[in-house]
C-alpha cells in the first residue's frame, strides 16, 4: 500500500501539478497517444527507445515553439507513463498469480 501512495503522489504531481503545459497534453504524453505531430516522435522515443534520443530530436521540438519548461514536463510525463504501464502489468500479473494460487490451495 505504501508504494501505491507514493506512486499516486508522483503521478498526481506530474499530471496535475502546477506547470506550463496543459493537463490534457501531459496526459497525452503520459499515455503516448493523441499527441500533436510535433511531439509524437520524441515522446514515443522516450517511451520505447530512450537511448536513441538525440540533440536533434530535442532541438526539433524546441523549434516548434515549445518552451523548455513545457518540454521538461512532457518528457517526464512520457517517461512516467511508460514506466507506469510496465509497473501496472507487473502488479496485475502478481495479483492474478496470487489469486489463482489461493484458489488452488483451497
Amino acid at each position: 500500500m505504501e508504494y501505491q501512495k507514493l506512486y499516486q503522489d508522483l503521478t498526481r504531481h506530474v499530471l496535475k501539478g502546477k506547470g506550463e503545459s496543459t493537463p490534457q497534453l501531459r496526459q497525452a504524453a503520459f499515455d503516448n497517444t493523441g499527441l500533436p505531430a510535433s511531439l509524437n516522435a520524441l515522446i514515443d522515443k522516450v517511451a520505447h527507445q530512450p537511448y536513441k534520443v538525440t540533440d536533434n530530436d530535442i532541438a526539433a521540438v524546441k523549434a516548434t515553439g515549445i518552451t523548455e519548461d513545457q518540454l521538461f514536463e512532457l518528457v517526464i510525463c512520457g517517461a512516467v507513463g511508460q514506466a507506469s504501464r510496465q509497473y501496472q502489468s507487473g502488479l496485475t500479473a502478481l495479483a492474478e498469480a496470487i489469486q489463482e494460487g489461493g484458489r488452488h490451495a483451497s
Partner: protein
Amino acid sequence: MRLEILNSGYKFGTKVLFGIIKLFSGYPLPDAARLVFYRPDFYGNPAKQFTQRAMRGPSAWTAGERELMAAYVSYLNECAFCIKAHTATAAGAYHDAEKVDRVLTDIKNAPITPVLRSTLQMIGKLTREHTVNADDMRTVIAAGVSPQQIEDALAVCFAFNLTNRLADAFGFAVPSDEAFEAGAEYLLKRGYA
C-alpha cells in the same frame, strides 16, 4: 543536459548548494542528482520519495540486491549513465565487481541465488518486453520468491525504467569512473532522499 534550464535554471540557493557539494566532494553533482532540484514540486520530490522507499525502505532484499536490480534494468535499457552509477553502487555493496559484471552479461550462470536470479529474469522481461503475465509470476514464486519480494522488485523496476528514460532523453553527462565511485559511496551511505 539537453535543456538549458537543467544546466543553469536553478534557484540561487540551489546553485550555492551545488557549489558547496563540489567543493567538499571534489566532483560536480551528477546530473541525476541535479535533475531532482529543478522545480522539485513537479517531479523531484515525489520521485525521490518513491525511489528512496524502493531502494532503501524495509524489504527482504538487501540494498546491494536492489542496486543490482537497478544496474540490470539500466543495462537492458542501454542507459550509459545509470549502468555506470548502479554497477559501481552494486559492486560497492557486494565488494565484488566481477559478480555484478557476470549478472549483467550472463544472468543464467551468474553466481547468485535462484531467488535473485528468477526475480532479475522477471524484471528483465518486463523491461525488455514492457509486459509480464501470471505465468511469469508463478515461475518466480515457484523459485521461492515471496509476493512481497516481487512487489519490492517491481518498485525498483519502475524507479529505474523511469530514471533511465529521463537520463537518456535529457542527456545526462557521463562523468569519470572516479566520480561514479564517489557517487556510489554516497548512495550506499546516504541513500536517495
